[in-house]
């Protein structure tokens, strides 16, 4: 059954051990995301939204519960297998862009393809296309410090898209941008969504969350509400 869903979380719990004390971050999350959904995850700090995002992004594994990503049970995979899943399935966009400072845009965008083991020529070609799709065809040879904040985030988006992932996972993508540039990036997300990509966005800004089609609110490690945006 789970084959049709892109993401299926069942009773996900995550408990951090601080010394001898167990600190629960997620206390039983069950949710489903279908392909081509555009979901915002909201919640105050300490609500568990970062933890949830790390789990969905396969950067971490849950203490209990199961996670199916594109029909594959990824809840108990090894480190190396998770790296492979991240590489093939997930495109990350971070608040702080996280570009390699000494590499130009083209090489930054190429990076996931390097770890996918693609040959140089194919890599270069796909990276160019991805840069063009975010409107930076002419910025390929600029380094991050030669680009504006908005342009940097566009490069990061291009990097997230370049390996044709099943899911774009954006963590406060406008957090380090002024509101005009933030709007611009959100416009870009809209467009990506229209092209058929699935996006999960973590934010604490209501007006950013409202750009999505569905908002999941967390509180104390549980889903508080899960509504479609009207």
């Amino acid at each position, binding site marked *: 059954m789970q084959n049709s869903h892109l993401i299926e979380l069942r009773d996900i719990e995550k408990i951090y051990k601080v010394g001898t004390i167990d600190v629960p971050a997620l206390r039983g999350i069950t949710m489903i995301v279908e392909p081509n959904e555009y979901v915002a995850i909201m919640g105050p700090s300490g609500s568990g939204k970062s933890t949830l995002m790390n789990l969905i992004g396969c950067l971490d594994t849950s203490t209990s519960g199961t996670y199916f990503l594109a029909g594959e049970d990824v809840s108990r995979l090894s480190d190396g297998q998770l*790296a492979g899943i*991240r590489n093939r399935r997930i495109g*990350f966009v971070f608040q702080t862009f996280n570009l390699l400072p000494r*590499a130009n845009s083209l090489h930054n965008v190429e*990076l*996931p393809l390097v770890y996918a083991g693609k040959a140089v020529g194919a890599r270069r070609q796909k990276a160019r296309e991805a840069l063009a799709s975010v409107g930076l065809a002419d910025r390929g040879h600029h380094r991050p410090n030669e680009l504006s904040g908005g342009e940097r985030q566009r490069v990061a988006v291009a990097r997230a898209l370049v390996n044709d992932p099943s899911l774009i996972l954006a963590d406060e993508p406008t957090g380090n941008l002024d509101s005009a540039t933030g709007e611009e990036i959100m416009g870009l997300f809209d467009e990506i969504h229209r092209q058929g990509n699935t996006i999960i966005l973590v934010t604490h800004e209501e007006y950013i969350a409202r750009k999505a089609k569905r908002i999941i609110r967390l509180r104390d490690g549980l889903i508080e509400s899960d509504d479609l945006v009207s």
Partner: protein
Amino acid sequence: MIRFFVEVFEGLRIAYTALRANKVRAILTTLGIVIGVTTVILITCIILGLNKSVSGQFAFLGSNTIYVSKFEWFGRNWREMLKRPDITIDEVHRVEKESQLAAAVSPWAETRRTVGYRDLKLSRVEVAGTNENYIQTNPTRPEIGRFFTEADVRRNRHVCVLGHEVASKLFPDQSPIGRRIKIGQVPFRVVGVQERIGKLFGTSMDNYVIVPIGTFNKVLGRHHYMSIIVKANNPHEIEDLEYELRGILRRARHLGPLEPDNFGINQQSSLMRAYLGIMSGIYIGGFLIAAISLIVGGIGIMNIMLVSVTERTQEVGLRKALGAKRWMIGWQFVVESAVLCSVGGAIGVFFAYLGAKGINNFLPTTMPPWVVGFGIVFAAVVGIFFGIYPAMKAARLHPIEALRYE
């Protein structure tokens, strides 16, 4: 396979960018490696050079020749040896007369004198006295002219044979044969020029003049130590010849059965033994220095790689988020460390090349091309070895914690 090459290339590329960003630090870090590689290569060059030169030059002494003299070449008790009687010309004659196993016997005495022809003067030229048999007891032959004869020796004639270098310096553009040169203040007629020998340990072996032994003693003084050069009939009888010579000398000197020899019997093999002793000293000393500096250098590399891992924790986190597996991250840092050390190795090879050129003025050195590759590869291996721990540390970073690291 393609994957592997992609990784190698990518690793090199990352290493290159990372190192270029910290040029000064990279160069300072490699200093230990530079010193280590310089030492290793320099010692290799010296040993190769010496071996090459020595194996050629020791052959000059001849493996079937025995040198009887007042001293053992590598004797230790100098106080005792100095008290020994000098070798006399009578003893030379006695050996000549009594030895059954000797093919040829010649005396050898030497000193240093200024040698001149007209206005040209060469100071401190080796002047040696011997007899006509020297032509058999040493391997060089006259290149032009002749060696002196039995008659020259018997009559104490003022004739001489020049070493190749003396001839070419005194007579740059004419034949020396028949010319009169002066040894000190005494005139001698040149009858021949010996063929070229070459250099040993950087000094010319052709800077000499040979005169008849009687003339030598009369004109240049008797107080020079004489030795006897004896060539064996048959190289296989060299031990027997040594035994026979010992007997002749002991009889000539009336030594009792319990008295020790008061003369030295030397062979090329004793020189070879001493040479190998010196060489093993150089080997051990040099490689000890090299090993220490490479270990110190390697620890320096490890240290700086640990700093580099810490500095780039976020980068590691990002790469992991994008799908880099542990071994890919580890590989990246190992390659960086290897490249860093190879650069140090290349600099070391370059310094060693300069050093070898400088040393060549007093010691022969050779630098075959394989040494260059050896130095760089060796440094890279050191880099890989000391890069493993930092690389493992980087590889084990947790992606979330690494990404959050400030």
